[in-house]
C-alpha cells in the first residue's frame, strides 16, 4: 500500500516539476511548483517524518509561494509570456543534463546497497521528542546561526526592495 501511494506521489510530483520548467506563464510555473511541494511533503509523511512534512507545507507553500506570487504580480510578466521555451536552444547544457541524469541513475541502480527493502534499523518511540532534543542540544549553534542568517536576509530584502537607494 505504501508503494502504491509512493508511485502516485512520485508521478504527480515529476509531472508538476516538468510543468514548472516547461510552462510559458510564470504564474502557471508557481502554481505547479506549489503542487509539487505538496506531493513532496506527502513523500515526507511516507518517510515517517511528519514534522518535516508540516514544515514543508508551512514554509514552502505558505511563505515562499506567497512571496513568488506577490513578486510575479508586482513585476510585468507579459513580455515573458510571449517568448516560447525551446529545449533544444542550448545543446551543450542539454547533453550535460542527460549525462548527469543517466550517470546518477546508473550508479544508484547498479549499487546493491540501496536495494534492501527494510530500513537498516527501525527506530521506535517518541520520534519528534528525540528529534527536537537532538536539534536543540547537539545542534544548538547551527540553529542560532540559521536564525541570524534569516534575520540578515530579512534586513537585506527590505534594504534591497526599498524605493530609492540610500
Amino acid at each position, binding site marked *: 500500500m505504501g508503494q502504491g501511494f509512493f508511485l502516485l506521489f512520485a508521478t504527480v510530483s515529476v509531472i508538476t516539476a516538468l510543468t*514548472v520548467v516547461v510552462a510559458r506563464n510564470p504564474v502557471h510555473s508557481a502554481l505547479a511548483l506549489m503542487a509539487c511541494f505538496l506531493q513532496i511533503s506527502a513523500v515526507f509523511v511516507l518517510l515517517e517524518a511528519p514534522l518535516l512534512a508540516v514544515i514543508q507545507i508551512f514554509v514552502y507553500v505558505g511563505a515562499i509561494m506567497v512571496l513568488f506570487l506577490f513578486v510575479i504580480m508586482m513585476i510585468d510578466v507579459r513580455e515573458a509570456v510571449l517568448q516560447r521555451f525551446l529545449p533544444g536552444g542550448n545543446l551543450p547544457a542539454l547533453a550535460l543534463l542527460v549525462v548527469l541524469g543517466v550517470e546518477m541513475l546508473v550508479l544508484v541502480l547498479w549499487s546493491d546497497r540501496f536495494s534492501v527493502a527494510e*530500513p537498516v534499523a527501525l527506530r521506535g518511540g517518541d520520534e519528534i521528542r528525540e528529534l527536537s532534543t537532538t536539534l536543540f542540544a547537539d545542534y544548538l549553534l547551527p540553529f542560532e546561526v540559521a536564525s541570524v542568517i534569516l534575520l540578515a536576509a530579512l534586513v537585506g530584502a527590505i534594504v*534591497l526592495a526599498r524605493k530609492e537607494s540610500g
Partner: protein
Amino acid sequence: MVPLWWYISLGVVLFVIGAAGVLLRRNILVVLMSLELLLNSVNINFIAFGRHYDDFRGQIFAIFVIAITAAEVAVALGILVALVRNKPTLKVDDVTMMKG
C-alpha cells in the same frame, strides 16, 4: 515497504528536472523556482537516508536546508525587484550590467 532506491531515484529525477530549469530557461523567475526544486530533491535524499540508517541528522539537515532556502528566496526576490526597477526585463541574458 518502499525500497530506498525508489526515494533516491525520485530525488535524482527531480534534481535533473530542476537543473534543466536552471540551465535551459531564460526567465529569472523560473530559474529561481527551479533552484527550489533542486533543494527539495536534496531534502528527499537527506530524509530517506536518515530514516534508512535511523539517524536524526538527515531530518535536522533538511530543516537547515529549508531555513537557508527561505533566506535565499527573500534576498533573491529583493534583488529581482530592484533589478526590474532599473532594467525592465526578465531574461537572464539581458542582465549583464553587474559584471566587472
